[in-house]
């Protein structure tokens, strides 16, 4: 019986200590203005249209495109596999499971990149992970993937390869026809850097 009393007292006193101390605010997720500037300068939140096109075509299961435009715009055109969360409803409980999760790579997009950047900033401040922004939005997407500029014949190989990739991707995603810029022996695809997916340890009995 004595040990039980001692153990109870130990637990209770530890509980009293932890209850007397205010919640540790320093560890709560809140980015300072400096950190925010640093993140912006690093442009870490951006994923280029080439990367997204590659992920869509290879049917990467980690990719979750989120269309921030209004429902009518979404119905008119949206990227394959995208879900519609109008920016005004971003923090609705209904969508929380999509926005605050650790399994998929969320990519926000809107027409330009202002709205998606705002969405990214809000979710980043809330401490949500795995949210990214489609660089340049749908306008830049249309410019690069759907109607890529034909490079000069004298352009470096990478540029021609990038053009060929975009042309192919555009065709696969419902754009124009495939028509290589010139007869390259082996088109080198632009390097697509995959983001490592953060793992989280799962618990259970």
């Amino acid at each position, binding site marked *: 019986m004595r040990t039980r009393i001692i153990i109870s007292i130990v637990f209770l006193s530890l509980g009293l200590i932890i*209850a007397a101390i205010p919640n540790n605010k320093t560890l709560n997720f809140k980015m300072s203005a400096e950190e925010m500037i640093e993140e912006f300068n690093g442009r870490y939140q951006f994923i280029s249209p080439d990367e997204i096109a590659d992920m869509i075509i290879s049917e990467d299961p980690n990719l979750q495109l989120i269309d921030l435009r209004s429902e009518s715009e979404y119905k008119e055109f949206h990227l394959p596999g995208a879900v519609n969360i109008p920016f005004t409803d971003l923090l609705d409980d209904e969508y929380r499971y999509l926005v605050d999760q650790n399994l998929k790579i969320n990519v926000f997009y809107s027409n330009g990149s202002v709205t998606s950047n705002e969405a990214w900033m809000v979710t980043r401040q809330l401490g949500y992970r795995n949210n990214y922004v489609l660089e340049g939005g749908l306008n830049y997407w249309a410019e690069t993937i759907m109607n890529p500029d034909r490079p000069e014949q004298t352009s470096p190989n990478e540029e021609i390869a990038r053009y060929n990739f975009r042309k192919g991707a555009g065709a696969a995603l419902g754009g124009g026809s495939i028509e290589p810029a010139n007869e390259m022996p082996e088109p080198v695809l632009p390097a697509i850097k995959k983001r490592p997916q953060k793992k989280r340890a799962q618990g259970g009995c």
Partner: protein
Amino acid sequence: MGPLIVNDIISPDTNLLMAFIIGIGFGWVLESSGFSSSKKLAGLFYGYDTVVLKVFFTAGLTAMIGLLFMSLFGWIDLDLVYINPTYLTSAVVGGLIMGLGFIMGGFCPGTSMCAAAIGKIDAMVFIGGLFLGVLIFTEGYPLIEKMYMANFKGYPRLSEVFNISDGLMALLFIVMALAAFWLAERFEKKTPAPEY
């Protein structure tokens, strides 16, 4: 080894190895404290042996206090700790099925492995049932998916629900646990263990 693997301090393979070693330790402790007997788990239901309640509640308390103090000292970022998402409907239905299985079989998945390892035939049958359940769940998933995902409540924590600080919640939880232990032991004394 949650935070270690998230921060790339150890690789997933090392993580598995550590899980293996910790698992052996866990099994050894379970077996040596008599949890491989189905009477222990059944005892909780019938009220003659409440050690299961005390052990798992104490484990919870230890982990809770440890995490809160580690967070206080800045050793662990509680945001990185996995919280089970709450799907209310499946939690209730699954809890009923699990509870029924526990009391019918007299084991929980962990103790059944322990008991099977020392050669208990009932535990082996229990594990067979466990795999059967896994098979039925997996193959029948399309039928129950709607119910499985119903009533998603996010990642609620008690302290957020009651809108009090984590520390105060912890203290309340400790008081509750100690009260539960005391009641359980009183109840235990009144209920004689059946003769087998």
